C-alpha cells in the first residue's frame, strides 16, 4: 500500500515568491489597501518614535533654552502616545484581516484549484503570507519615511537650524528599522487568520464557493 502513495511535494521559495509578486502586480488595487493601511499605522508609529527620540536627545544634549521648553510635558505625552499607537496598529491589523478576507474569498476558486493540483495548505498560506508581507513592507517603508521626515522637518521649523547637530540620526534609523519590521509583521499577522481559513477548505468546497 505504502509504496503507491508518496508524500514528497514542494513549493520552492523562489516560486512562491514569484507567484506572490505577480499577484500583487496584477491585483494592484487590492495590494494598495493593505499597503496604505500599514502605511498609516507605521507613519503614525514612526512619527511618535522619531519625536520621542529627538526629544530625549535634545533633553540630554541640546541647548538650554530648548531643554527647558521640552521638559514640561515630555513624559506625559509619551504614555498617551504609546496608547494611541497601539490602538492605531490594532486598527491596522483589523483592516488587513478584513482586506485579506476579501482577497482570499475572491480567489477561493484559485485556491481550490491549486489544492487539486497538489498544493498543501502550507503552500497556499505561504503564497498569501508572502504577498501580505511584501505589501506590508512597502507600506511600512513609505510610512516610516514619511513619518520620520514629517517630524524631523517640524522640529526644524519649531527650533530652527540650531538643533541640527543634536538630531540623533542613528537612533532614528534604528527606530525606522524597528517600525518597518513591526509593520511587516503586522501585515503577516493580519493575514494569518483569513489565509488559514481558506487554505484548510476541502478543494471541492473552495471551488464551489462563489463570491
Amino acid at each position, binding site marked *: 500500500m505504502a509504496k503507491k*502513495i508518496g508524500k514528497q511535494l514542494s513549493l520552492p521559495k523562489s516560486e512562491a515568491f514569484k507567484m506572490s509578486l505577480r499577484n500583487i502586480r496584477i491585483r494592484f488595487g487590492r495590494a494598495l489597501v493593505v499597503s496604505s493601511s500599514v502605511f498609516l499605522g507605521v507613519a503614525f508609529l514612526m512619527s511618535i518614535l522619531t519625536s520621542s527620540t529627538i526629544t530625549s536627545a535634545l533633553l540630554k544634549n541640546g541647548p538650554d533654552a530648548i531643554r527647558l521648553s521640552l521638559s514640561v510635558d515630555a513624559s506625559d505625552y509619551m504614555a498617551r502616545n504609546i496608547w494611541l499607537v497601539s490602538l492605531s496598529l490594532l486598527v491596522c491589523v483589523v483592516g488587513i484581516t478584513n482586506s485579506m478576507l476579501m482577497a482570499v474569498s475572491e480567489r477561493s476558486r484559485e485556491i481550490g484549484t491549486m489544492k487539486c*493540483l497538489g498544493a498543501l495548505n502550507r503552500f497556499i498560506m505561504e503564497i498569501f503570507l508572502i504577498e501580505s508581507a511584501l505589501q506590508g513592507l512597502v507600506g511600512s517603508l513609505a510610512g516610516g519615511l514619511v513619518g520620520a521626515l514629517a517630524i524631523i522637518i517640524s522640529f526644524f521649523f519649531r527650533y530652527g537650524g540650531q538643533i541640527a547637530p543634536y538630531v540623533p540620526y542613528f537612533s532614528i534609523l534604528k527606530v525606522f528599522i524597528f517600525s518597518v519590521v513591526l509593520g511587516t509583521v503586522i501585515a503577516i499577522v493580519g493575514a494569518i487568520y483569513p489565509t488559514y481559513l481558506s487554505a484548510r477548505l476541502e478543494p471541492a468546497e473552495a471551488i464551489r464557493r462563489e463570491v
Partner: protein
Amino acid sequence: MPEKKDIVVRTVGVTKNFMLGRIELQVLKGIDLEINQGEYISIMGPSGSGKTTLFNMIGGLDKPSNGRVYIDEVDVAQLDAFELAWLRCRKIGYIFQTFNLIPVMTALENVTLPMIFAGTSHDESVDKGRQLLELVGLGERILHKPFELSGGQQQRVAIARAFANSPAIILADEPTGNLDLKTGKEIIGLLKEMNRKQGVSVITATHDLKMLDISDRVIWIRDGQVERIENRADLNIQVGAVEGE
C-alpha cells in the same frame, strides 16, 4: 487482500449529505462502482443527480459522509494531508467545466504548476509543459494568459495541465459543458486519444450524448444512485436510437 491489479477506482457504499440550514440533504445514496485501468467511463445523469458530488468523492476533493473510496486499492480516508495532496498531484488529473486555470499565470505556467509541486526541476517541467501544450494543439500560445484564450483553448490548457504529472486517472466534470458543439467534439477526441495512447483511465461526467460513442462504459446516475451501467456493446443500439430522434 484479494487485489485485482487493474481496478483504479472503487467506491463502496459512498453517501454524501449536505446540511441546508437545518435540513439534511442526501445527495449521494450509496454508490458502488469499480473502474478499471484504461477505461473510458462516462457518467450520465440529469442536472442535480449528484455527478459533481460523486466526482469530488472519487477525486479526493471532498470527504464522503459514509462509505469508502479506494484509489489503486488505497483507502483515501486513511491518507494524511501530505499523501492526499500527493494523490491529487500525481495520481489524478482534474478537468473542470469552468476550466479553472489560474488567471494570473500563462498557459505554460498553468501546465508547469503541478510539476513544480511534484518537485520536477524548472527546465524539465518547462520542456514537458511545451510538449503537452503542443500535443493539445496550443504550441503557439504557451505564453498567453487564460483571458487571452478562447474557451476551447482554455480547456486544452486544462487538459495539458491535467496530464502534467502523467496521472493514472483523469476526472473530467463536464469538460465540454461550456463549449460549442464542434469544440466539444475536439476536446472529447483529445481525451479519447490520450486515453488510448497512454492508457489513462478517463472518467467524465456529461450531459453530452456524443460522449457515449467513445465510452467503454456508461454509468447512469439518477437521484444520487446508480441507475444502470451499460457496456459499449449494449450501447450502440441506444446511441443509434438517440441519434435517430
